[in-house]
Every structure is written in C-alpha cells, then in structure tokens.
C-alpha cells in the first residue's frame, strides 16, 4: 500500500533520514521503534508531506506522493496524528473534529463518522462543546485520533500516541488502535513504548540515527536479544 524507497531528508545541514526504505501492506499494523531523535517523526512528516525528501520515492497505492503538498496527500487517504497531539486548543472538540473532515464534501458520510468517533470515544461526546485546550492529556490524544479518523483515512500515521499518558489510558489507546485497525484502516505506529507497540503490531522496523537497522515481524523482533537490550529495557 505504501512503499518508501531510499529517501533522504535534511533539516538544513542535518541529515535526518539516510536512505530509508519501508513497506506497509493493506490492513497491517506496522510499528517503527527507535530512540529519541532517531528520525521517527521526521519519517512520518515526510510521508504526510510536511517535509520534502531530497531524493527517493514514496508511493501510496502506486501513486507517487513524495514532495506533494500535505493537502494532496491527505486527500489521497493518509492521515496523521502528530506527536504531542497538536489539537486546536482554542476550538471546541466538535470544531476540531469538523476540521478533520475539512477536505470532505459528503455531508452524510461526515455525520456518520461523527457518530463513529463518538462511539469510539464516548468521552469526546460528553465534552463536545468544551475548548480542546482545557482537555486532559488523554482526552486530547483521543481527540487527535478522532480528528484524524474524520478524514476517513486508509492509512493512519500515529506518532507516539502513548506519550505522557497514564497506564490505564495507554491501554485504552492501544485497544482503540487495534479496533481502528479491525475496521480496515492500515496503521503505521511510532512508539517509544516498544513493548506495547510490538504487542499489537504485525511487523516492525527499528530506526537508529536516521537509518533502518532492523525489520521483521513483531514476534521476531521482540525475541531478538539486541533489540531487547536496546529498546525493551532490562526488566
């Protein structure tokens, strides 16, 4: 579904992604793990069109999207839940969700999706008139996911959805991710919390200082000693 081949991304002089290649198949959950500053967010931003790769190819459903502007990419069915939630703090929950469906014209479909999102996150329904800036961290994360779902994406990019969340909420969020996946949405999940991520993913990639250093099924990787030592902690 998504095929990334040999992309290089720079921030000025900083070479953030060095020849990264990666594939995602329809219906999968793929996770990308790596330390701080490895380039995970950079990769997601590049897929979404917020950053332009210097070279290399990104193909989404066999169409070239590398270097296209974000809105064109969103339109093709890729949505991102950005790192740190980035909800529109000065707008209500409802308005945030409306903006998620910004490019869509089908009023009926939008209405359906509103209901779907509220079903997935009943909390959001309770708070639909509240300014999103005043939500708690977990609620904001739910909103960010709901907002991305409003675009009816076929590929959902999640950037550290568990960051800063209470253990209970982390579990909830991961359950929801699995649920979203079941409804047919393909997922690329970036996580620090590698244990959790590997537990729900089909396949995984490991990224280190801008390079993919390992890839395989989730199971394979969680068994690898090297990976365990570096990312899964000594416990």
């Amino acid at each position, binding site marked *: 579904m998504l095929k990334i081949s040999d992309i290089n991304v720079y921030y000025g002089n900083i070479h953030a992604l060095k020849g990264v290649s990666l594939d995602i198949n329809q219906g999968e959950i793929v996770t990308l793990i790596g330390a*701080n*500053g490895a380039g995970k967010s950079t990769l997601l931003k590049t897929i979404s069109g917020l950053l332009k790769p210097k070279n290399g190819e990104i193909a989404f459903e066999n169409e070239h999207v590398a270097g296209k502007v974000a809105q064109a990419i969103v339109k093709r069915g890729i949505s991102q839940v950005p790192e740190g939630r980035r909800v529109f703090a000065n707008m209500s929950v409802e308005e945030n969700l409306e903006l998620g469906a910004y490019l869509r014209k089908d009023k009926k479909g939008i209405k359906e999706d509103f209901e779907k999102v509220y079903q997935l996150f009943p909390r959001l329904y309770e708070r639909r008139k509240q300014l999103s800036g005043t939500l*708690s*961290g977990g609620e904001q994360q739910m909103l960010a996911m709901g907002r991305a779902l409003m675009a009816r994406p076929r590929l959902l990019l999640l950037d550290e959805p568990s960051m800063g969340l209470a253990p*209970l*909420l982390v579990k909830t969020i991961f359950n929801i991710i699995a649920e979203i996946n079941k409804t047919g949405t393909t997922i690329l999940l970036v996580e*620090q919390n590698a244990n959790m991520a590997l537990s729900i993913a089909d396949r995984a990639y490991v990224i280190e200082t801008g390079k993919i250093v390992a890839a395989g099924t989730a199971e394979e990787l969680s068994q690898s000693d090297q990976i365990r030592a570096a990312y899964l902690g*000594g416990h």
Partner: protein
Amino acid sequence: MTAKTPLLKVENAGIRFGGLKAVSDVNVELKQGELVGLIGPNGAGKTTFFNLLTGVYVPTEGSISLAGEKLNGQAPYKINQKGISRTFQNIRLFGDLSVLDNVKVAYHSLAKHSILSSIFRLPSHFSGEKEMEEKAIEFLKIFKLDGVMHEMAKNLPYGQQRRLEIARALAANPKLLLLDEPAAGMNPQETDELMNLISLIRERFDLTILLIEHDMLLVMGVCERIYVLDHGQLIAEGTPEQIRNNPKVIEAYLGEEVS
C-alpha cells in the same frame, strides 16, 4: 530542623480555575530525605499541585509550608530561593543560552556580586563569576553534560535536555526537588539510567524529592512512598506495594494488572 517538623507540610491546599476544582483539600507531608512519588490520571492535578508548591499559582485555600515557614502567596523566585526547585513537564530550558549558562542562571541567587561590581568589573565580579563557573561545571559533570557545556541548550537531544533541566534545578541548591515526568519520551533503556541518576543525586545532595511519573517501573522502582491524585483529590497514599494493590488506584489509574 527538628525531626518532628516535616520538610514540606501541605494542609488542605486547593485551587480553582473558574468552576473547576483542579486541586482540592490535599494534605501532603514530606520528611527530610524522602523520595516520594505522585501519580494519577491525566488531568488529575499533579502538575497543578507542583505549580501551587512553586508559587506559579496561588492556592485559593489551605496552606503550604517548608521547614515550618509558610510559603502561600510568595513569588516563585522567592520560593525557589527558600529551597524548592523544579523541572517542567514541557521542557523549559533557556534555549539560546549554552548548557553551562543555563546552570549558572539557576545559581544566580547564590551569587554575591552586585550589578555595579559587574558593570565596573570590580574584583568581586571576577571572583563571583569564577565561583559560579566552577560550581556549574561540577553539576554538569555529575549529569555527564560537561562534554556539551558550550552547546546551546536548544540543540541538545531530548534526553540530554531532560537531564539538563534536572541539573539546572539542582544548581539552585534546593532542599526539595520537584520532578515533573522526567522520563516522559524516554525509552526503557534511558529510563533505567535516569532512575540511577535520581538515586545518586538524592544521596549526594541530601535531597528530598517529589516525583510525578506515569512510568510505573520507575515510580515503583525508586519511590519509598506514593501519593495518588484523582480529580484533584488524594485518593491513596502508601508504599509502592500498597498502592499497587489498592483497588481505588487500580480502578482510576493502573488498570488490572501491572508488571
């Protein structure tokens, strides 16, 4: 201080934001040298509680005292000078200052040279600055940051920024150190290192530490006691063992099983 008076005593403290009681009726006591955890769901009021302790917000009810001295209504910088120092949940370094200068800023209130002595470059300026520099480098060494001391803080990788925040907080020579999610955004490996560091500085500086964290491995691993906040109120207090098995905490925060 006598063994009787706790270092920090918070009685019935609370604050409202409009209609919202973000923190209410909280009682906390920390003894000299303790390492205590503060946990609770998102939005429970943990950070807000830190803000009350450090004077960022003025409590609308209750009282806070450090070593017997009341702190309510004092300006944040005064509270810092009296001995409470903190880190922030969302990192707040002085981005365009060097790592070394970040630490020196925190050491500022301990410096003795006046503005005039600096303007006229009197001897006290040079000796004062020299002392600051030596002290600051000492702190950075503990945190293994001396190698990057001339880098601008904003250019550090995330993990080092977190450590620098702690180093900076320590440079203000606090009696009580407040850490707000120091392990956020760290992978398990880095979290391990952080745990060791926290234990180390407690020993070395004879500190009392209050720590907010969502990483249960860390909290349960280092804390002697834990307070649990939910909806602005304390719902539990006890040893890690007690907390782990407290049904209220499990329901509100932990979920069924914890590793």
